[in-house]
Every structure is written in C-alpha cells, then in structure tokens.
C-alpha cells in the first residue's frame, strides 16, 4: 500500500462522514427522529435575511435627548429644593450644552445655592455666576461631561435591553440584537412578515404619562395665548372602527405630570365586555399603586388623560378612587394594537427616542426566488464544469470531479457545523469556488502531463506533479484568503456571508484537491499499475 495510505483514507473518511452528519438536518427537513436530534447535530444551515426574507435595522439611540431629559428633571427638582431651602430665585431654565440657568434675587443666596448643588447634585458644576445690573445674580449650572457620557451610555444599554425585551415578545425566531459603536443598535429579524409592525413596536418610545385634564377651559377654542399658565393643549386621536377614519380632538391638560409609567410591572390585553373592545390593563408596583390611589382619590369626578408618546390615548372620568394598583388604557385599539401596546408597556419605555439609520427588508417570496435562482445557476455551472473537466482530463478528470462534489459537501457541511449564515453572495461564493476549485487540480494535472511528456513513469509523474504544484497552490490560495479575511473584517451582513463561504471554500478545496485526489491516484496506481496515465 502507498505511504500513509491508511492514515489519509481514514482522515478523508472521517471528514466526509462528519460533513454528511452535519448536512442531514438541512436535507432531512424537520422530520428527524428523536434519537438523532438527541445525540447528533441538528442545526440546519442558517439562511441570511436576503434568502429567507426578513428585516435588518440599524437604530440610533438619540442619547442626547436622554441627557436633556435628565437635565430637565433636575431643573424641576432644583426648583422644589430651592423653595424648601428658602433660596429665592426666578424659575430655572434649561439651555444648550446641558445647562440650567437661574436668577437669584439676593446675593446672600449664592453660597446657599452652591452648597445645595455640591450636596445634592454632584453631577453639576457652577459654570458661571455673575451679578446683573439690577443686583440679581445669574447662575449657570452645567452637567459635567463625565456625567453626560454616563447618562448617554446608560441610555444606550437600557435601550438595547428594552428593545431585546420587545423583540422577544414579538415572536421572531432567532432574532439578533447587537450594540454597535456610537449608540447604534443592529437588529436582524429573520422571516418577519409584517415589517411595519415590527418597526412600530421596536421604535415606539412608549413614554406613558398621566396628566389631569383642565376642564375649566374650552378645549375647542383654546389657543396657546389664552391658555392658563401651567396648561398645555394635546391631541386626542379617536378612530371610527367602521370607516377607519381617525378624528383628532384637542384636549387641555395640566402640564405637570401626575404620574409616569415607570412603576408599571405588568400589562395585559383584556376585552371590554360592554363595548366588545380590547383594552390594556396595567398593574403598578406598590409605590406606584399608592401614588395612583392618591391621585384618583384627590381627583374624583375629574378626567385623567392617559398619554403615550405625547398622544392622548383616552381621558376617562375618575368615578371613584382606584386603590387596586391597576389602571386601564382604552383607546379604540384593534386587537393587534392592544397586544403591541401591552408589549411595549411591559418592556418599559425607551430612555430616549430611536432613529432608524438603515432599514433593509426582503420579502419571503424574493428570498425564495433568490434561493431557486442561486441553486439553478449552481447546478448548471457545476454540470458544465464537471463535464468539461471529465472531457479534458479523462480519468484524472473524473478524480477532480469527485473532489469537486466532495468539496461541495464539505462546504455546505462546514456552513452547517459552524452555523455560518448562507447569503445570496454566499451562494455566489460557492459558485465561484466551483470554478476556482478545479484550479488546484488543473495545476497538478498540467504538471503531471509535463512529467509524463518528459518520459517519467505514471507513478513518478504523479509524485512529481503533486510535489511541485502543492506549494504553488498554497501560495495562490493564501492571497485569496487574505482578501476574504479583509472582507470579513470590514463587510456587513451578506458580504460577511460571502467572505465566510469563500474562506471555507478555499480551505476545503485545498483539502479535496490535494489530499483526496492524491488518495484516488494512489489507489488507482496501486491497484491497476497502469503503463500509461489517462490524463
């Protein structure tokens, strides 16, 4: 037997069996017996979004808004604290660069304010304070850069968590949610049928607020100018279910937020038996329940507006104090809308609004077409190449063809084993590999032909051919591998898929073209001891 024959054939056999084992789940579909799935690989080849359809989103968390909101909250709190400590000032205003500016009426309060800031608001520093012409003092407080960054980072992380929660409840199999640099979030949702619903669900800030309605003002005629101080006009949307028309109706509320949705622990869809309409019931934690009971007790017979992202959902009249720790949000929802609202309320508000930077959606039918066309071109290309090589190199060509087929099995097996994602450019990569995989064998065979012409025996010619061509083959493939690695490093989505299949293809074609065909040659030469090589 040829040198290392058993070792080599065992190696090839093991590799082939492994590849086949990994391929079975993909070929066999979902109908594998239990004993198989329990002990053997059961992962199918993962298809990229461009093949199975789905959605790819890149969102940007507008973290600056979270920072501004935090400054705004501090400014309101500061006003209360100053009143408590008898610091007399004109109400603080927030400005650009995360600043709060306020005007102190008495110079003597300056030290007291500085002391208060140092004690209670270590994240702020006094940026400037100067005496105005009328003797009052203008003080500007600024959020430190470190604190601002902390809040921004926090907002990104929290947004990621919240979005993950929402996607989990949306019911997508194998979603991928990953943080990117600069507060960006990458979301991949394979097989999503209703992309607009997904975007609405993910992108909704879901800032829930309760505000008391000011019924002393006629909302229909109120304008900004005639509005009492501390009030604002919001819009309430009502939809007529029969016609689907949406009516807008102005409503005047107290600007002060009576309560937010921060204490919500659960949200569920329920049916209103009277109107046969879905509504969302939310449950508060104990602190929230107490707060809600307090508000409803003090404002019986008044209306409480329930506001989601600045839009009034409903403004029911408080009939009696609600002490059970539950509130109901009704607002002409369809069943689906109510369910999505429950999801976003359960998973909490986004700390800052998100902006869609990139959106790519592929419909499932297009994905299927791509697979069909990809496989068709692969099969036709393969047949052409296989036929041509067989014609050109005869027996040796048959060896190369076997290697090519094995190559395909190995590539697809490796894709399944590594759980790499197969994309449309990935299929193109495999097709390209088919074309280039024969290169190694062509190099070897051309060498063998040369050696045969020089009068060497078949055995010596094969030996020399493989010996001389192997290093060349390695050199040539390493550079392609370098290009593939760079592609992988810098590419995204489908391009990465291409880089992965290209790399796997290079590795496997090296193995099949050098080791496997050599084995076939060894076997043939040993068994038949031919005088003349069919090459």
């Amino acid at each position: 037997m040829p040198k290392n024959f058993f070792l080599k054939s065992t190696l090839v056999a093991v590799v082939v069996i492994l590849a086949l084992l990994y391929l079975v789940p993909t070929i066999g579909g979902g109908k594998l017996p239990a004993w198989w799935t329990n002990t053997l690989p059961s992962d199918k080849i993962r298809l990229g979004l461009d093949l199975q359809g789905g959605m790819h989103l890149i969102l940007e968390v507008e973290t600056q808004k979270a920072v501004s909101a935090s400054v705004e909250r501090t400014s309101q709190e500061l006003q209360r604290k100053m009143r408590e400590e008898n610091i007399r000032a004109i109400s603080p205003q927030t400005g650009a660069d995360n600043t709060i500016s306020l005007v102190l009426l008495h110079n003597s309060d300056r030290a007291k304010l500085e002391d208060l800031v140092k004690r209670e608001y270590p994240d702020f520093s006094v940026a400037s304070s100067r005496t105005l012409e009328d003797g009052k003092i203008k003080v500007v407080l600024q959020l430190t850069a470190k604190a601002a960054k902390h809040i921004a980072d926090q907002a990104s992380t929290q947004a990621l968590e919240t979005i993950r929660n929402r996607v989990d409840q949306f019911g997508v199999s194998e979603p991928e949610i990953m943080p990117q640099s600069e507060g960006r979030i990458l979301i991949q949702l394979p097989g999503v049928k209703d992309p607009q619903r997904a975007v609405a669900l993910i992108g909704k800030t879901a800032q829930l607020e309760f505000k008391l309605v000011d019924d002393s003002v006629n909302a229909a005629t109120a304008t900004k100018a005639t509005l009492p101080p501390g009030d604002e006009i919001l819009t309430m949307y009502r939809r007529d279910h029969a016609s689907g028309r949406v009516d807008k109706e102005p409503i005047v509320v107290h600007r002060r937020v009576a309560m937010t949705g921060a204490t919500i622990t659960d949200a569920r869809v329920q049916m209103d038996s009277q109107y046969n309409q879905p509504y969302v019931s939310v449950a508060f934690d104990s602190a929230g329940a107490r707060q809600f009971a307090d508000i409803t007790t003090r404002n019986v017979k008044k209306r409480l507006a329930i506001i989601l992202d600045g839009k009034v959902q409903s403004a029911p009249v408080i009939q009696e104090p609600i002490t059970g720790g539950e509130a109901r949000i009704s607002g002409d929802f369809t069943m689906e809308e109510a369910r999505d609202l429950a999801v976003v309320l359960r998973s909490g508000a986004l700390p800052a609004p998100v902006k869609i930077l990139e959106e790519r959606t592929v419909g499932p039918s297009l994905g299927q077409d791509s697979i069909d066309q990809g496989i068709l071109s692969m099969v036709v290309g393969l047949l052409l190449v296989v036929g041509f090589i067989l014609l050109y190199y005869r027996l040796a060509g048959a060896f190369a063809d076997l290697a090519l087929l094995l190559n395909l099995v190995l590539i697809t097996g490796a894709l399944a084993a590594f759980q790499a994602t197969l994309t449309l450019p990935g299929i193109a990569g495999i097709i390209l590999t088919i074309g280039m995989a024969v290169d190694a064998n062509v190099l070897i065979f051309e060498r063998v032909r040369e050696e045969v012409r020089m009068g060497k025996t078949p055995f010596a010619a094969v030996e020399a051919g493989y010996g001389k061509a192997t290093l060349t083959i390695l050199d040539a493939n390493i550079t392609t591998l370098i290009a593939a690695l760079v592609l992988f490093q810098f590419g995204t989505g489908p391009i990465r898929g291409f880089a992965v299949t290209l790399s796997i293809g290079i590795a496997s074609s090296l193995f099949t073209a050098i080791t496997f065909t050599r084995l076939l040659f060894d076997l043939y030469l040993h068994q038949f001891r031919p005088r003349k090589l069919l090459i």
Partner: protein
Amino acid sequence: MEFIKPNVNINFVGSRGKAFILSGLLILMTVVTLFAHGGPNYGIDFAGGILVQVRFSEPTDASAIKKALAPLGMDQSLVQGFGDKKNNEFLIRNERAGLKLQGLSDRVRQTLAESYGKGKVEVRRVEMVGPKVGQDLREKALLAIFYAIVMIAVYISGRFEQKWGLAAVMAGVLVGATLLVQALIAAMGGEEGMAMVLLILTALVVTVGACWLLKLRYALGAIVALIHDVVITVGVFSLLDKEFTLATVAALLTIIGYSLNDTIIVYDRIRENLKTAGKQPLGQTINESINQTLSRTILTSGTTLLVLLCLFVLGGGVIEDFALALLVGVVVGTYSSIFVASPVLLLLPEGKPMSMRSSAPAKAAVARPEPVEAVAAPAQVSPGKAAGAARQKKAKKKSGKKGKRH
C-alpha cells in the same frame, strides 16, 4: 484533450509594449468615464436613500409608478423595470438627501397600495440607508480595499523574495505615510469622503514607490497588476453606468484575490525556471514560464468564467451586477497576469537596494557590473543577450541561496 500544445512558445514578453498601450488606454477610459459621470455612481449603500423593489400583479409602467409616488415627493425617483418583463417588477430608487427617511418604506408601501389597489402590489425588497450610514459604509469599503492591498504587498514581498524584513519596513513606511496624510487632511479640515480617496491614493503610490525603491520586484508586479485589474473593472462599471454597492466592493476584493492567484502561479514558475535558466536572459525565462502555465491559466479562467456566466444569466437580478463585476475582473485579471504582472518584472533595474549594499559586500561584488546594463533593460523590447547575462548571473546567485523550495 489539449487546448495548448506542450511546445507552444508565444512571445508574450515581446508584445508587452502593445499590452502596456492597451492597458494604458483602458485605464484612460476609466479616468475619462469617471470624470464624465462626475465620480462613481454610488448606489444607495454609499449615497444613502431608498430602494424599493415592487412587483405588480398587472402590467404598469414607470411613469405611472412615478405619478403614484408624487404625494410622497418621490416623483423624481428613478424607476426601472427589473428582471423578466412579464414579472411586472420594478426598482424604485431615490437618493435625494432631503427625503425624510423615517417611516418612508412604510409610506411607499401604503401609497402604492392606495393607487393600485390592495393586493395588487407586492413590496419585495426595501433598502433604506441614512446619509450618515452611507458615508460610514463608503469609508469601510475603501478601508477594506486599502488593507487588502497592504497585507498582500507584505505577504508577497516576504514570501517571494524572502525579504520579510524589507516587507516589514514597507508596511511601516506605508502605515506611517497614511497616518501622516490622515493628519494633514485632518489639519486642513478636508471633506471626509475626499480624504479617504486621498488616503487610498497615497497608499497606492507609497506601496508602488516602496516596492520600486526596495527592489521588491515581485511585489511590484503583483500590485501593479491588481491595481490595473481593479481600476479597469471600475472603469467598465462606470462605462456601463452600473451602480457601486457593497456587493461591488466585495466583487472588487474577490478580483484582487483572483488576480493575485493568477499572477502568483506564473511567478512561482518563473522563480522555479530561474534556477535552471543558465545564461538565458530573464525575459526569455519569463516568456517560457508564461507559456508553460498558459494551459492552466486558460483552463482555470475558462471554468471560472463558465460558472460566472451561469450566475450572471440564471442568478436573478439581485446578483447580476455582482456577477458582472466578477466576469469583467476575471477576464482582466487573466490578461494582466500574462501581459502586465510578468513584464513588469523587467521594468525594475537589477540589483540590491542601495541601503543593503554596505551590509552585504559579497553580493555587491556580483551586483557591481549591473547598473550599466540596467539602464538599457527597460527600453529593450525583446529580451537581448547583453542585459540577460548580468541578470542571469543574479538569478543563479538568488536561486543558489534560496532555491530550497523543492
């Protein structure tokens, strides 16, 4: 079966003058078409904007679709038929920067459904890229090409000339030069997109320059060939007014890999033949090597083109441009490995790099007579005898030292 007879001897090196003129013209075409089109035709991946692929259940035409999209301010969109005509499939593209992208895909969906009736329109694909992301992607793509070139230059210098030290020096020079240019651009406050182009150009010039000065002839040949291939492929794309997308960049990088693959196989043969070349001039050795590998070159390019043609014809619209780029690249790459990469080896004057001379007196002695002939070398059209003698002495020296490959 044999396409190429074993004793074939075509004088490829002799026709390098014509080849250089042809290549020059092709590169000129690239420059002209790029200028004529006002730069590369960036697809929405790089330019930002929206692309929607829609299929209608009944025949319609581009102007009707534009009219339907007017309420969205998208009547300026580019609407093209896509794929097979009987599919009633269209691509709608809009790269207008002012367009509000938030929720746009959804609005397109609704607007089309309203004017064509529910169920008559199927939105098969939506791609929407914000302007900032587009710029990021553009930079990433250019960076990818840049790093691929750097790494390949270093690998070839090290692997082929056993000059890993010089390769490292070159890598250092390259990184230094690009950092310097980057700093300069930052200091001048130049526009970012332009900065990247400048950076790549610098990288290329520095790489070619460094190869020339350090006399890394194989690396020089390989890099000139791959720049040649990429530039011409870009030119053909620009000439056909095809869009540059992420997939095109992937194709370009693959072409880089393929082009090198081809080049290296010829180079390997040249190095092997140099060991036994005797008094034969370098040009003749190169010619023999190309002829010996010609069969392989044609066969491999042939099978690759065969499958790429299948992909181009049968692969469907989404992959068409990608396949086209690869097709062009493989043709150009095959041509360049024969007519560009190898003849470039003759351009470089023989001898060790200046800095190495003092440290290697023994080699310098061999190299001393060369400068006289080296001047004549690039001008010679067919390999002459005089220049060859010195060259071959060198080759022998080289192979004696480094001929441990087989």
